[in-house]
Structure formats: structure tokens, C-alpha cells
């Protein structure tokens, strides 16, 4: 299988074929990093474009992302951690008091599919937990989600907690969720807000540009 064939299989979300192709390439001595940058990522870029145009839908994007991940999983042990290509690390979590995670998960999956490294903290994450995780992982971006009008206020506290230990200097904070608006983001000192998962990817692209 050549890179072009791999791209096609990523586009179609064919996990088996991407796995087989990656194995074949590794056996024939292809450079692991090139398998990622030329075999897997270009296919996923096509997927991103088609999604934006409304020709592909979320479940298909996820299938392609799964196929890409299957390839990356095989290559990963052969590459030093620091050499793994990433567009940036994003720390994600639903804020304290809120158990809703479908929106956050969608953003995480879309970000991963577009080459970001996502560390998903889960739901009901306290400001202290956000601060501790940020100190540990040193991400470029922190993403917070809330569905409830009552829990979105925890976003303000989380940003305050990050500010107190000066973490907001080097880290961009984005927020999202059904009740969240751009005005609210501005009011609580967030760096950005995205109304949907697709826009969240674009926002992160701007942050790391």
C-alpha cells in the first residue's frame, strides 16, 4: 500500500485497511514519522474539509479518526514521545457540578481528529483539579464545558484559580456549552468561545498559530 492508498482508507474510515497498510509499511522499512505525516494526516485533512462543506457528518469524521488512530497506535512505540507530531495539547473537562459530557467529548474527538493531543479530565472537574492538571501537563489550551446555566458560573471560578497561580499567562482558555455566549466568555476572562465542535477546532488552530 502506498501513502495515497492509506489516505483513501483514512478518508473512508477503514480501520482494518489502515492497520494492514501501516503494518506493511513498517515491515518494508518505511520511516515511522512519514507514515503519520504522509500516510495518515493528509487523509484526515481531507475529512476536515469535507465536514466543513457539509458533505461528511460527525459519525463519519469519527470513523476516519478511529482509522487514523489505529495506524498511529502501531507507529507510536517506534517514535520518541517528543517526536510525535502534534499541533498542541488541549486539556478538556466539564466543570464542577455538571455531569454532561457529550459536547466536551465531541470537541475532544474533533480536536484529536485534526492532530491535537487531548487530555480529557472528564466531568465534574473542580477548579483545583484543573489547576493541578494544568501544572502537570503544561497544555497550550484549556477547554471547559458546561450545559447548565447553574454550573457555567464554575467556569469563572476555574479561570480565577488559574489566574491566581499565573497559569493563564501561557495557556489559552476556551469555553463552550449550550448556555455559554461570547459575551459571557469575555466577562469571565476566557480567551475564546466556540459555539460548536467544528468552531472549537478553528479556535484552537488560531490559538496555536
Amino acid at each position, binding site marked *: 500500500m502506498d501513502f495515497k492508498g492509506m489516505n483513501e482508507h483514512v478518508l473512508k*474510515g477503514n480501520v482494518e485497511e489502515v492497520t494492514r497498510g501501516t503494518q506493511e509499511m513498517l515491515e518494508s522499512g518505511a520511516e515511522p514519522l512519514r507514515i503519520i505525516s504522509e500516510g495518515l494526516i493528509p487523509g484526515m485533512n481531507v475529512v476536515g474539509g469535507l465536514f466543513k462543506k457539509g458533505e461528511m*457528518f*460527525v*459519525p*463519519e469524521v*469519527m*470513523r476516519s479518526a*478511529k482509522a487514523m488512530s489505529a495506524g498511529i497506535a502501531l507507529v507510536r512505540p517506534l517514535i520518541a514521545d517528543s517526536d510525535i507530531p502534534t499541533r498542541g495539547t488541549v486539556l478538556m473537562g466539564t466543570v464542577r457540578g455538571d455531569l454532561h*459530557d*457529550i459536547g466536551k*467529548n*465531541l470537541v475532544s*474527538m474533533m480536536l484529536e481528529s485534526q492532530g491535537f493531543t487531548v487530555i480529557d479530565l472528564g466531568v465534574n472537574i473542580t477548579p483545583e483539579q484543573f489547576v493541578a492538571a494544568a501544572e502537570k501537563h503544561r497544555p497550550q489550551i484549556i477547554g471547559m464545558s458546561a450545559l447548565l446555566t447553574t454550573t457555567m458560573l464554575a467556569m469563572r471560578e476555574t479561570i480565577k484559580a488559574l489566574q491566581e497561580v499565573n497559569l493563564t499567562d501561557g495557556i489559552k482558555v476556551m469555553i463552550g456549552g449550550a448556555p455559554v455566549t*461570547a459575551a459571557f466568555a469575555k466577562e469571565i476572562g476566557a480567551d475564546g468561545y466556540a*459555539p*460548536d465542535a467544528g*468552531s472549537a477546532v478553528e479556535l484552537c488552530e488560531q490559538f496555536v498559530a
Partner: protein
Amino acid sequence: MKVNMASQTTVGLNLLSEDQIEEIHSATLQVLQTVGVDVYEEEALVLLKGSGADVEGNRVRIPVWMVQEALASAPKSVTLYNRQGEAACVLEKGRIYYGSGSDTPYTIDLETGKRRLATNEDVGNAAKLADALEHINFIMSLGLASDTPKESSDVYQYLAMVTNTTKPIVFTAHDKQGLLDIHEISALVAGGERELRRKPFLALYAEPSSPLMHSKEAVEKLLACAEKEIPVIYVPATMRGATGPVTPAGSLVVANAEQLSGLVVHQLKRRGAPFIYGGGTPPMDLRTFICSYGSPERDLGCTALVKIGQHYNLPTFTTAGCSDAHVFDQQAGMEAGFNLLIAGLAGGNLIHDAGYIGIGLISSMEMLVLCDETVNNVKYYLNGIEVNTETLAVDVIKAVGPGGNFIGEEHTLKHFRQNRINTHVLNRENLDNWELGGARTFGELANERAKELLAEHEVPSLPAEVLDRIEEIVRRKRGLEE
């Protein structure tokens, strides 16, 4: 397996019980036998008298057995083909097809947004737009061609349609001569009269005159259609409170008597010739005198006639996609949304008048676009819910469990396309993205879509030799006019 369980049930409308329909039918037979109808056409009177009707001058009283014979010989299924000879509208119980409306003096100009007299170019453009729209299945002349000679505008309008669409055409004709000219043109398009007879891509729309009259012109056309086996829609618009009783049931009796007596004449001329039942009992507004196109009173009558037609096993023609609003506004959208759904639920076969505003006097291309989009919604809804092991998805629910999500499941991938609806004009953007996109209204987007489709869509042209021969017919007509 489970016995006697449909795997899929579509959605429908229970408007009249079988018993109620029987009562309307009995009352109709009583009217036909005792009151009768007036027929102003000689051949029909001779046919009726010769076959056993009680004819006294123009008044014809029809015995029950004649009505029963006509109902028995009329075809249960009529198929309209497209210009390429493929079956396009199969008029059988439960199959719905939407089409544009007919013969409006005015149109709303797509460029200026102003109302003006319609021209033959408008008729062609409307046919082309309807041809491009997925959910418009048949075409009527969305405009009266004010720039053609009045005596033959029917033929010019037909030409504008047949050269701008391949979909089936429902047309009107001024008189028998107009009908014969259009038939001649259509035979050229179909590749011969026999081909046209076998695969008609057209149907005539004609009307009795309420209450209980058949004009000379209408019956001449009815007889000519029977002879040439051109499917004919012979349906009334009996105005409740004016040309029919104000009660829905009473106006249905009058409307039914008019078309059943028409059917008797038609089947006497040629048994088995294709006849389409339906029409409406719109209210005459007893304050403003208008004949409403957007009111639920009209919808009630139209859908009731569909139900009666289904009871008779006759193909039906009905009305939706129209409004009393004089501009393309909220009322237009609301009324069309309501009547398109109701008509779909009733299951009438040919549902015409998409694009009609201004109480049937104004055409609007934006309205046509709205109707197409609405029919898309209606059809999605009418499909109902498929219930079986695969769609119940218990295995998937087990696999995902509490707190998980279904977005990445194979089951979602397999089924999401057939379970989601694509929209062209309706907003599905969130507030931010909608504002980023220019915060455009439905009206602006519908206008843009109409213009885009008109610019992009191409209709295969008729062969040059056919066009030449059509041109000869037009020249002949012009010669007669001069």
C-alpha cells in the same frame, strides 16, 4: 416471526369514517337521481339519454346504476410518465406527488420583489425551477402569459412548459381546439399518438360549473380527453356558502355529484379512459367575498374529497402549497406549511398549487422553493417510524451503557443518513454561525436559491425536428389568428 405485524407504518389521516362516506355517497346519488345536473353539450346529452338517463332539455337525472357502472369501469390506477417515457407519477392509493399551481395573472418578480403581470417567460422559468426542485413532481403553468395572444395563450403556455421541464405536465386548455393543438404537440414530443396514449406525460385540468352544471367547453374537453385517452382531472371548486351549501358535508355532496356525473359522461364516451377525481369545497368568505386558498375550511374540503376518491378507488387531484397572503410573508409560509402537511397526510395523488399566493392570483418563486423544502419535511414525517430488532438497537444500548455516547457507534454510522433530513434553505446554524454568515432571513435565502437553480439547471432540449414541427403548428395558429 411475528404474524400480522407491519414492520413499518406510515402516518395518515382519519378524517371521515367509512359510514360517513357512505352517507355522503347516498346523498349524492339521491341528488343525481332526483335533482340532476345541467349539461350544455349535445353529444353528452345524446350519450346520456341513449344509455338510460332521464334527459329533459339540458337537465339530466342519472340513475344509481349508471353511476355504479361508471365507477366500476374507471381505472383504479393512472400513470403519468415523464417526457422520456419513464413512469413518474403512479396515481394509486397512498402515493403522493406535489406540483406547482396554475394560471396566475400576476407574479412576484425575482429581481425586484414587485408584483407585475406574468409573461410566457415567467411560465417557462417557473417550469424550469420546478423541474430543478426535487420534491416538485409535476408541473402546471405558474402564470398566465399576458404577452401572448389571449385566444391561444393556453398553447403558448404549454410550449413554455414542455420545453422547460421533463416532468409530467398538468395543463389547462381554453377550449377543445386548444386541447387538440396541445395534444398534437404532445404526440410529436412523445414520438406519435400511440406512444402518447400508452405513456401520457400530461393530464388536462377542467372544471364543472358549480352548482351542478357542465358547460359546453368543459364537456367538449372531457369527451375529447376520453376519446384520446388523455388523463383528465375533472374536478370542481364548489364554494361553500355560495355555489354550495355552507356546511362541509353539503358542499361535498354537490362537489361529488358534479364530478360523478362528469365521470358518467366520460366513461360513456370511452370505458376505462383515465379519469382523476378530487377538487375542493373552498369557502367564499362571507365578509370579503374571496374564495380562500389558505384557510383550513378549504383544507377540510380538499382532504375530504381525497378520502371519498380513495373510497371509490379513483386517483385523486388536490390542493396545497397555496396562501391568501398577497406577498411572500409569514402568512404564506404558515398556510403552505399547514396545507402541504394536511394534503400529504390525506394521501391525495396529485397535490397542486405549490407557489401560489394572493388567493390564487399571484405566483411566487420563493413560495415554490418554500414548498419544496416543506414537502421534504412532510415526506420525512410521513415515513413514520420503522420498528424492528435492528432499529430498536437494544444491543447498541447495551454496548454503550449509561453515561456513554452513540456518536461513534457502527449503528449510528449505518443509519444516520436515512434518519437525518437535509435542508437547503431552513436555518440549522447556531446563532453565532448564522450571524457570521450574514444573518440572512429565509426569504433572502429562498430568493437566492430560486435564482441559483434557474441559472444552473439545464433541461434537455427537444430534438430539432420535433421543435421544427411544433413551430409549424404555432405558425398555423398564428395564421388563423390573423
